[in-house]
């Protein structure tokens, strides 16, 4: 069965050059997992999990432990449930406005979190709900923010493009604008002599923005500890990558910055690549690095987009059934004897229960008060004498 799976995998790729493979279940067990759940054991990634540009590929042998695998499974399942709850709330017209969901891309956020420290900085665009939760936020805070309630992380006044934690810089609305800001955060880290890395994420649609290349130049020139991460989900809104970019190998777009293309559906490969990138920028101080995660989103670009006008439903179904990151990790866990199906079902239920409870809490929270229209604009104590509101007569004196 495993050898058949391998054959099927290689036939799926356009085999002119050795391309990357994007299945979630091709990692092989090397030695038996020990009974101790926190003891690491070795697994070997598929040889086509990485492609490198002017740098070495990471090691294919990875140390993982049972606890880690189960923790990732629970995190990914929780994130999936949270995004699905947001989908249902939007369809029930409780969430209005913009809502960009990352269903299918959970391995990127959970893998990133697994490979970095809590002091590392992360900045991304609007597909940010899993990152916000994993970087120190809460599900109640994110859902509350989407619903526009006081319990939200920006007190309900910002929405998904305005969610911050001390190590997470958003949640940014303008396409590609977060990349130069990310380079700036890396500059600040270097200036303050902190041993932390900054991960500036953007999508395949934003990769052609001019300011992204300006950020690349400055990062390479000043040797900033910045890792530029391109989440290539193959569609920039409704435009496929082939129709938008002349060079779809986004990991080579850094010119002098070395790059690494990673299978973004396999959580173990993702985590390995993130650790490699952190090692590169922080420990070895080799300057910036470009990571490209090849991943896929099942939903549309946002809740207004059905997601089927520019790709076939069969393609989405195929990706769901053959390359789903959660199913892949489930397969690993069951095949390697880490846990039984029952235990995983239990984790599923716990994830669903956590998200449901958080959603109920968020729904019960009240909407912001009218006086909150004037708070959080200026740092407390530095406000101007008065602030104009929505109409000429609406003036608030601080």
């Amino acid at each position: 069965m495993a050898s058949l799976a391998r054959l099927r995998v290689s036939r799926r790729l356009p085999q002119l050059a050795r391309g990357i493979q994007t299945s979630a279940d091709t990692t092989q067990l090397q030695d038996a997992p020990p009974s101790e759940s926190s003891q690491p054991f070795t697994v070997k990634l598929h040889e086509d999990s990485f492609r490198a540009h002017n740098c070495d590929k990471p090691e294919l042998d990875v140390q993982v432990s049972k606890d880690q695998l189960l923790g990732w499974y629970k995190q990914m399942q929780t994130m999936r449930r949270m995004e699905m709850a947001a989908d249902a709330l939007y369809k029930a017209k409780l969430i209005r406005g913009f809502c960009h969901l990352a269903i299918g891309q959970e391995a990127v956020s959970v893998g990133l979190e697994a490979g970095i420290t809590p002091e590392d900085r992360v900045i991304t665009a609007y597909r940010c709900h899993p990152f916000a939760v994993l970087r120190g936020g809460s599900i109640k805070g994110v859902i509350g923010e989407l619903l526009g309630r006081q319990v939200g992380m920006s007190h309900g006044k910002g929405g998904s493009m305005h969610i911050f934690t001390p190590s997470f810089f958003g949640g940014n609305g303008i396409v590609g604008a977060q990349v130069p800001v990310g380079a700036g955060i890396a500059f600040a880290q270097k200036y303050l002599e902190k041993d932390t890395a900054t991960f500036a994420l953007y999508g395949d649609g934003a990769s052609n923005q001019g300011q992204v290349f300006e950020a690349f130049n400055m990062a390479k020139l000043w040797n900033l500890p910045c890792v530029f991460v391109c989440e290539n989900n193959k569609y920039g809104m409704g435009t496929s990558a082939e129709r938008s970019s002349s060079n779809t190998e986004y990991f080579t777009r850094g010119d002098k910055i070395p790059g690494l293309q990673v299978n973004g559906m396999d959580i173990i490969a993702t985590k390995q690549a993130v650790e490699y990138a952190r090692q590169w920028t922080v420990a070895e101080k080799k300057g910036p690095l470009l990571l490209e995660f090849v991943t896929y989103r099942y939903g549309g670009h946002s809740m207004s987009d059905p997601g089927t006008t520019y790709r076939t439903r069969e393609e989405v179904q195929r990706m769901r059934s053959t390359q789903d990151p959660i199913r892949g990790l489930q397969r690993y866990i069951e095949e390697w004897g880490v846990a039984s199906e029952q235990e995983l079902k239990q984790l599923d239920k716990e994830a669903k229960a956590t998200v449901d409870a958080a959603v109920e809490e968020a729904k019960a929270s009240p909407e912001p008060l009218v006086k909150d229209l004037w708070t959080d604009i200026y740092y407390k104590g530095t406000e101007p004498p008065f602030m104009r509101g929505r109409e000429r007569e609406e003036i608030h004196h601080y």
Partner: protein
Amino acid sequence: MSTLPRTAAGPLLRRMLHQTHARRAITNLEMPAMSPTMTEGGIASWKKQKGDSFTAGDVLLEIETDKATIDVEAQDDGVMGMIIVPDGTKNVVVGKVIALLAEEGDDISNLQPPPEDASSRQKQQQQQESESKASSSQSQDSKPSPSTPSAPSKDTHSSGTPSHSRPLFPSVHRLLLEHDVSKPSEIKGTGVRGMLTKGDVLAYLGMASGPTGTYKEAPPPAAQAQPKKEEYKPLDGPALRRLIASTMLQNSIKTRNPSPESPVSANFDSVLADYLPSTPASSSKPQTPAPLPAPKTTNWLDGLF
């Protein structure tokens, strides 16, 4: 990726182990809003019937909105438990329960539609109550805020920033600070909606003669207008008759007293030459009368008698 081994054993196991949990897994499928402006829609057709199983991403039904017919996908794997609103129903309100979904292996034989009316009415009432509470609190809050700007603004203290009931221009602000004007509200504002202008402040300080200083408006273009007033008026009856009579008089004077230049050659050929196409023979003719008119003018009657 093969899922055969799992699904073959799974449902059986689950059926054996989860018989008692059948009821807990029922979820309500509510009418989704396929666009933010949709309030109700119609069920076009159900793609899954009672007892059909589906995976996440499968199309469950098609919904007709006012704009288009859109597919609704399933979020999770499951089995269709019971269809409450059948094909072809129109005007289904968003949020109404349209079906019951169950998980695989659950007992779906005796499902009953939820007591939706009571719960949905309660929800609507709660929403209306909360909306009315929110709007009343908002109206109370908004009343004090418009009253504060209408109240006279606080007077300036010499160390503070000058303030005026109207916004201050940067140039005005700077002047007020430079010259330590204590009560800018005393200066009369001649700007838009009573704003202070730089000229007002300078006049107040005595550094200018008036709010507009030495600016003189250009004199109204009265001189330019007058020549234009000679418009041509349309001719009325008497004026038209006058014009006709004067033209006739001129023509009669002209015929009585022909001007010396008129060539009076009573030659038959010369008269015809006016009407014939120019030939080399006739083209020489017009040249011959040209020197002739000078001696002939006084003898026009010679040919007659």
